[in-house]
């Protein structure tokens, strides 16, 4: 009973019920139409046959008088399957024909009988005497005699009966067929849905590796499962990313937090030397500022990556941003002995957010300066901006130690500081932030070799299709 109700609740079952109703309605309309049409045809045929009969009887009457007519009628009456004939004199006495008894009043009105009437035939024994229905044409002869020619309705009655039975049979078969289809299709659908919901219950229960079943038939259930699986895949990836980030945060923030705590403790212990205590406190503040900065960067990256950043974009002059950032970093570069220059011709605009782009570029330039500062021969960082048919490329090229090919993908991950640079200052978020900013701009951050396959080129690539 419960299963039946569940079956009733499936969409397939509801649909098939609806179809049965529709088909049944159509069948009824069709049958009614066909039977009324054929009814009318039969009536017309009957009337034509009667009229013909009438015509030949009239001719006989005109040629041979009443005697001839009576004789003709008595001959015709005896033929098998004959029509109904009756002729009466002016007193209503039956002179000839095959009708023994007739519903009273039928003979009173000349012309077509308005409704079928009852009669019984001559010669039928009283036990077998049946009451038949017929239609007839009544006409008055000149000497007050009445002539009736009619036709039994048994035939059309039987026809109607056949049609009705056919209709019932058709409806019955349709019902059985629909019920079968309903049962099998509905049950199959129910089974698939049951397995899907069973899988989702397990997934909700925490088994994120579980996937929804795909039968391989490529039907809509498969497509649904595939899409939901893709969604689960994405959720799992985000989840994994989140887990990794929190691990990294825990790892990367634990060290400075511990240091912070130790320093505060040491400052507290410095009872005598006020200057030393003060210095310790100042360093503590500086360190917490760095922590806040790291947090802000993580927050920004997550927001940009999650794609719900509400930052507005407008036409931004990239050339101006390059100019600003190079100008901002030029003194630092000079202090570190790095040649920083830019190679920008004309003004190139992209659709974007000026603040984010400037921050991304300054992170990249910052890195480039820091890492190339150590290189032996004439450290230099070049920023180039070029517009080609399909993309705008903003490149920062340095001649520092570079990043080995196999480590480049990892270099833009959060908190990743490649082995060689573990001892360099920085949060390890610079390139990740730049990558997130580029993702926000529907662009890419591409790492390749620097010039003469030395150093590193970090390219911010804006696809021209979207940014013009």
């Amino acid at each position: 009973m419960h299963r039946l109700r569940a079956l009733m609740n499936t969409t397939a079952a509801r649909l098939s019920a609806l179809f049965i109703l529709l088909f049944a309605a159509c069948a009824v309309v069709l049958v009614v139409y066909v039977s009324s049409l054929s009814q009318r045809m039969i009536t017309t045929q009957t009337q034509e046959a009667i009229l013909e009969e009438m015509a030949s009887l009239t001719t006989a009457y005109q040629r041979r008088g009443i005697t001839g007519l009576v004789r003709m009628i008595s001959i015709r009456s005896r033929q098998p399957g004959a029509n109904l004939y009756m002729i009466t004199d002016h007193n209503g006495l039956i002179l000839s024909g095959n009708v023994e008894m007739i519903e009273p009043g039928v003979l009173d009105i000349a012309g077509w009988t308005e409704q079928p009437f009852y009669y019984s035939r001559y010669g039928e024994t009283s036990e077998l005497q049946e009451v038949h229905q017929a239609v007839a044409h009544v006409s008055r002869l000149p000497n007050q005699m009445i002539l009736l020619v009619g036709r039994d309705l048994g035939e059309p009655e039987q026809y109607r009966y056949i049609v009705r039975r056919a209709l019932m049979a058709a409806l019955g078969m349709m019902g059985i067929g629909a019920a079968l289809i309903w049962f099998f299709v509905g049950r199959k659908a129910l089974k698939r849905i049951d397995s899907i919901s069973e899988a989702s219950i397990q997934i909700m229960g925490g088994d994120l590796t579980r996937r929804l079943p795909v039968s391989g038939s490529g039907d809509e259930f498969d497509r649904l499962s595939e899409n939901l699986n893709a969604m689960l895949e994405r959720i799992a990836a985000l989840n994994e990313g989140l887990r990794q980030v929190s691990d990294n945060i825990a790892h990367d923030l634990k060290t400075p937090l511990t240091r912070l705590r130790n320093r505060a403790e040491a400052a507290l212990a410095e009872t005598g030397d006020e200057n030393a205590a003060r210095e310790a406190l100042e360093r503590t503040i500086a360190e917490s500022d760095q922590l806040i900065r790291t947090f802000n960067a993580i927050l920004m990256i997550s927001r940009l990556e999650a794609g719900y950043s509400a930052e507005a974009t407008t036409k931004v002059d990239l050339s101006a941003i390059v100019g600003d950032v190079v100008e901002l970093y030029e003194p630092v570069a000079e202090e570190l002995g790095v040649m920083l220059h830019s190679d920008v011709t004309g003004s190139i605009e992209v659709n974007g957010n000026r603040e984010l782009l400037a921050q991304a570029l300054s992170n990249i330039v910052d890195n480039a300066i820091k890492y190339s500062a150590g290189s032996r021969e004439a450290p230099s960082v070049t920023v180039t901006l070029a517009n080609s048919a399909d993309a705008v490329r903003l490149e920062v090229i340095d001649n520092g130690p570079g990043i080995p090919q196999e480590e480049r993908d990892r270099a833009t991950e959060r908190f990743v500081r490649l082995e060689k640079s573990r001892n360099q200052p920085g949060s390890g978020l610079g390139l990740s932030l730049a990558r997130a900013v580029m993702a926000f701009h529907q662009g890419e951050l591409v790492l390749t070799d620097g010039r003469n396959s030395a150093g590193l080129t970090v390219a911010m690539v804006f696809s021209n299709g979207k940014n013009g």
Partner: protein
Amino acid sequence: MKILIIEDDREASTFLKKAFAEAGHTADTALDGETGFALADTGTYDVYIVDRMLPLRDGLSVIRELRSKGNKTPALILSALGEVDDRVTGLRAGGDDYLIKPYAFSELLARVEVLNRRTGAKDIDTVYKVGDLELDRLSHTVTRGGEEITLQPREFRLLEYLMRHAGQVVTRTMLLENVWDYHFDPQTNVIDVHISRLRSKIEKGFDKPLLHTVRGAGYMIRAD
């Protein structure tokens, strides 16, 4: 300076009140938007510090109504919302500065002091003077003791901003915001290097230092 702090975090507002008192300012506190608006409406303050998210009435609506009533007292918005657009919304509502939580008190203090219209140079001043250093905003020239000093355009703007707020602490982020018009936090000490370049230009050959570093806060230009 008399400051009104509208901040619903009781601990934070108590700390701010105490810290401003130590810096020589008096501060009143309001813990919700309605009280804050009523106090601000008395018009006896030099600067408002308004938290963006407040009970009863949000900070932006408080500032908006004060502005619509013709109150021009400078207002600094404190907010945990840190996207560029949030800042724009805040300034559009009538705020004069926007500071994202968490912040260093030294940063807040410097910004509030700079907002105070009773001190610092006025918009109409065309020549700023600090000791024997003079900056002419119209002719774009800088002289010290009558000797002309050649500055790059950016150095000129840097010095202009510092001299406009002579005697007040300006922080690195304030400089980046006002001189470069960027609001992000550069990873390296880029501003420091610009300052030391400027310092060498205006102090080389002169005995008296003018451009001072304020530890843990920023920079200040002053004559003594």
